[in-house]
């Protein structure tokens, strides 16, 4: 056993290897976020997984977030959507977040399933719920919602689908319209 190679700083390492890729580095509450340019995400993931001293070998999560504000626009964010890839290094006991901004009019990102096959379902879920497509994904069917569903429920402009809450003053009104099943 020669011991574990010295841990590298992920931000500096990715900057050195893929100079185009890193757009920004954010630190918040001890978590590091690398903002990666959209075309480079697969290369960055592969680099982070395979480099000595980084070894982010486990994909914890891929989440999507929609920055749409209630009155339109997305504040000071560059694009409407973002993907957050959460990587875990089991060798160095640390985590890293890669963030990719995705524009509203062209929501396509390359799939990372060649790097981690487990990303398959995580990406399918995002494609279903957020409407971000993944180029080269092996199974682009809907995951959660029925196949004939319209829209992507987790987008901020998708209504919650609220029904009026029943109180004693409006119970008759609601009961009249409720489609009760007959035999």
């Amino acid at each position, binding site marked *: 056993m020669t011991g574990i190679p010295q841990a590298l700083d992920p931000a500096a390492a990715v900057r050195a290897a893929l100079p185009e890729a890193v757009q920004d580095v954010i630190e*918040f*509450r001890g*978590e590091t*976020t690398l903002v990666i340019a959209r075309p480079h995400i697969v290369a960055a993931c592969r680099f982070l997984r395979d480099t000595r001293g980084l070894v982010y*070998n*486990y*994909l*914890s*999560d891929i*989440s*999507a*977030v*929609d*920055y749409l504000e209630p009155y339109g626009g997305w*504040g000071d964010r560059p694009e409407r959507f973002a993907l*957050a890839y*959460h990587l*875990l290094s*089991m060798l160095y*006991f640390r*985590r890293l*977040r890669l963030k990719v901004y995705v524009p509203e009019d062209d929501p396509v990102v390359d799939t990372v399933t060649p790097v*981690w*096959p*487990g*990303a*398959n*379902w*995580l990406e399918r*879920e995002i494609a279903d719920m957020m409407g971000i497509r993944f180029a080269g994904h*092996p*199974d682009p*069917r*809907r*995951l*959660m*919602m*029925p196949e004939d569903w319209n829209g992507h*429920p*987790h987008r*901020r402009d*998708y209504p*919650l*689908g609220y029904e009026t809450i029943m109180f004693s003053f409006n119970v008759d009104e609601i009961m009249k319209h409720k489609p009760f099943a007959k035999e």
Partner: protein
Amino acid sequence: MAIATAKNEQVARWEGNIEELRGLVSERAFTGETMLLNMGPHHPSTHGVLRVLLELDGEQIVSCLPDVGYLHTGIEKNMEHKTYEKCVTLTDRMDYLAPMSNNMAFCLAVEKLVDLDVPERAQIIRVIGLELTRINSHLVWLGTHALDLGAMSVFLYCFREREYILEMFEILSGQRMMTSYIRPGGVWRDIPPEFMPKLQQFLEYFPPRIDDYEKLLTNNPLWIDRTQGIGIIEPETALAWGVSGPSLRGSGINWDLRKAMPYSGYEQYDFDVPVGEHGDVYDRFLVRIREMRESVKILRQAAARLPAKGPFRSNNRKFVPPPRSELGQSMEAVIHHFKLWTEGFSAPDQEVFVAIESPRGEVSVYLHGTGGNRPRRVHYKTPSFMHIGALPVMTQGHLIADLVAIIGSIDIVLGDCDR
């Protein structure tokens, strides 16, 4: 006539579907050489409402396509419309066999986002709750898994012991299953006086019961025949597919977030992480059984360490409501109380990520604030989700009867998967 049209429509629908499956099932399915079989969503051994589309060559599984979403409840979307404290009640209902783990993950995320402290005593109470949850969940798993494989009595024994834990939860939180006991900043209320004696009683009573289960199953030739060498996951495959928890440890990888990246003071407890060797159904069974013993060990230590008196939640009034007793005396307390229960607290427009070890594996929360009192996005990555995603690799080449054993051994909860 009407029947004929209905049938034709059905056939047409089915043919539409089968084209979609091109590339997912083998080419032989299109020539009719292999059979496509639908299993679920109403099937007694899929642990809920999982639907699996199987391609079968005789009894052998050629490919397997799980279909989830029959329990998709939109919890993540609902959370975006609730204040942070109200969200906690929704987290219970995702993984309903381990409600406290889900509470815990969410509360840790909120605490990280707003930078809230948790007193030592509250952390110990949380550990007690979490470990009881682990035993509770493993008991349900053992009972149903054994039931699926034909061992009825284990189910009855497991549920007998489970009632004991549910009673304790009821003492603790007033609810048997949906406890919502862990809240941002600590726990909901102090431990009631009758809880600790009950816990001690349980710790006396429970370990011999684990021996009983082992007597029934561990060396039982029928059990061994049905589980050994079935559903093997190689360690590399497990990592690549995001398998976690006991299923990962069954494959021989010593990875437990309680040890590796401790939270809530887990580094102060002395316990082992059971690891399997072969990665088959039997090893996963052994790992979970041993985990129950380790949980008992942790519970003993936690019970010994728990101070009799002390704060059970943070004193930071901006995030944690004041105790009732203060409301009659302090105007400030009344204001805080009112603010917190009407509007809630605000969190910065930032993102945090927290992962903890639930009984099923790594459950992680991605929480993004808005700067206001509601989250912009909550995303749970749940172990069941990843495990069902990995089901196709685990089942390849097995018999259809083994599918039941494999589904049972990865301990899935569909509420956890679909959210």
